[in-house]
């Protein structure tokens, strides 16, 4: 339906999300400068995933859209994750 009432997201929400994203960016720069071996990669990816969640939820409006769009996005990420797992099962155990 095209006449569906649009949810207008208050500016405040965007500013808060941006600040959170900036803090997470600096946190990830900080944490990767510490020598932690393999955990550096894990830490960097965890921060990237949290940032992705924020961008998808607030900037890309998933929070305010119908839930099936979220379901589609989740499906694509799960699909991608499965491909990664299968690829690495191959490389780790060949």
């Amino acid at each position, binding site marked *: 339906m095209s*006449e569906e009432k649009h949810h207008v*997201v208050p500016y405040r929400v965007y500013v808060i999300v941006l600040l959170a994203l900036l803090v997470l960016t600096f946190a990830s720069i900080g944490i990767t400068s510490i020598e932690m071996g393999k955990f550096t990669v894990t830490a960097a990816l965890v921060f990237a995933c949290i940032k992705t969640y924020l961008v998808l939820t607030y900037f890309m409006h998933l929070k305010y859209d119908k839930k099936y769009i979220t379901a589609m996005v989740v499906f694509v990420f799960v699909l991608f994750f499965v*491909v990664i797992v299968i690829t690495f099962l191959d490389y780790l155990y060949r």
Partner: protein
Amino acid sequence: MEQNTHVGHDHYDAEASKIGMWLFIFTELLLFGGLFIVYSVYRFMNQDAFHLAAEELNTTIGAINTILLLVSSMTIAMSTSTLQLKKKGATLALLAVTVLIGLIFLVNKYFEWGTKFEHGIWPGSEHLLNDFSQGEILFFGLYFVMTGLHALHIIIGLIIILVAAWRVHKGTVNENRASLLENSGLYWHLVDLIWIFLFPLFYLIH
């Protein structure tokens, strides 16, 4: 349904165009996703070389570009709100800021790549092929392909935003017909999302 005041066919459907945009974004995610898998497999196989090669990249310029993209993501997200509130001037101003930031990102990228070229590092360069290990060659190959493809997306994103801004200016994109602006926003956020992963994988992990 929208009231049919227009004569002829008028197929504006905000929800359908949103679904279409998301489907397109999925193909983009999987395109870059494939490259990320290539990156992670080669990193797994050449850990020391990737470690060494990543030292060559400038974390500061990468961090600045990250901040720029995050801010521009916010400005374009805000422009969708101002459009709904019928603030045309503010919408255009926010879009102008977004485009400006995108251009600064590209200028940074130009200087960043320029420095690499000055050091004799580009895909297939003699210095790279003769003096670097296989793993380092792979790292720089992926670096140029992935950041290059990302920069191409920035350029396309800027063009789409300019078209949307022009249509906002003309009034054909307005609070009742916001799809073009909202979809350009989604595209710009996608470009931001990809950078959120490119930045730590290339610049941060040493």
